[in-house]
């Protein structure tokens, strides 16, 4: 009886962990659908108006190329860390976003903000769709 109880409680803990990940994915997907387009819009504005109007900081990483990439990767860090508790998809999204931002720094040239906008916009929305499929309704 005791062994059965231990096995049942272990089973319950494993199922709870999997369900928490599904619920977290669902909630995060809603945020990504909102955040992705906002950041993409901010990045496009930064590209179009390189004078960096103050409001653009509210939407997307701005400023010097290195500073923009720094903020972009810093904003991905919580996703990487959240993946340790909430499910590996968060870490994968965070690492993919970080890699794409570094790619922007080395390869995008003068189109850096467009690249970051595409990364945050398209990729975050795609990640949101993926998380929605995995999550609870």
């Amino acid at each position: 009886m005791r062994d059965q109880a231990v096995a049942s409680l272990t089973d319950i803990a494993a199922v709870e962990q999997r369900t928490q990940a599904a619920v977290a994915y669902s909630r995060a997907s809603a945020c990504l659908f909102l955040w992705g387009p906002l950041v993409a819009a901010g990045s496009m504005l930064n590209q179009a108006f390189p004078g960096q109007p103050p409001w653009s900081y509210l939407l997307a990483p701005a400023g010097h190329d290195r500073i923009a990439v720094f903020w972009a990767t810093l904003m991905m860090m919580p996703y990487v860390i959240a993946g340790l508790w909430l499910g590996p998809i968060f870490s994968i999204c965070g690492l993919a976003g970080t890699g794409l931002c570094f790619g922007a720094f080395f390869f995008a040239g003068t189109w850096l903000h467009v690249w970051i906008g595409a990364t945050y916009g398209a990729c975050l929305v795609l990640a949101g769709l993926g998380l929605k499929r995995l999550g609870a309704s």
Partner: protein
Amino acid sequence: MEPNEIIHQSTRLRVMAALDILEGDEWLEFTRLRAIVRATDGSLGAHLETLAREGYVAIEKLFVGRKPQTRVRPTGAGRQAFAAHVSYLRALLDVPPQPGKG
């Protein structure tokens, strides 16, 4: 304390454990629940029917676009029954093990 004979079965125990995580207005879609509890379609369907008959879960069938979707959530009675069964399991661990018995 007595075990809950409905929830004691392993698949139904996993189903209730998964649903108990949800907040009041949240549902779990059938295919997602099937992946979480690692059951087959037929098995999960049968166990959900049993749980619904006891009033432990609510099942809703709807259409999302043209695709049918079944989703599930726990009832108040289901949450109480699951909590009581978990208490029973924990109480078993408080009993000192007897030599020669599992």
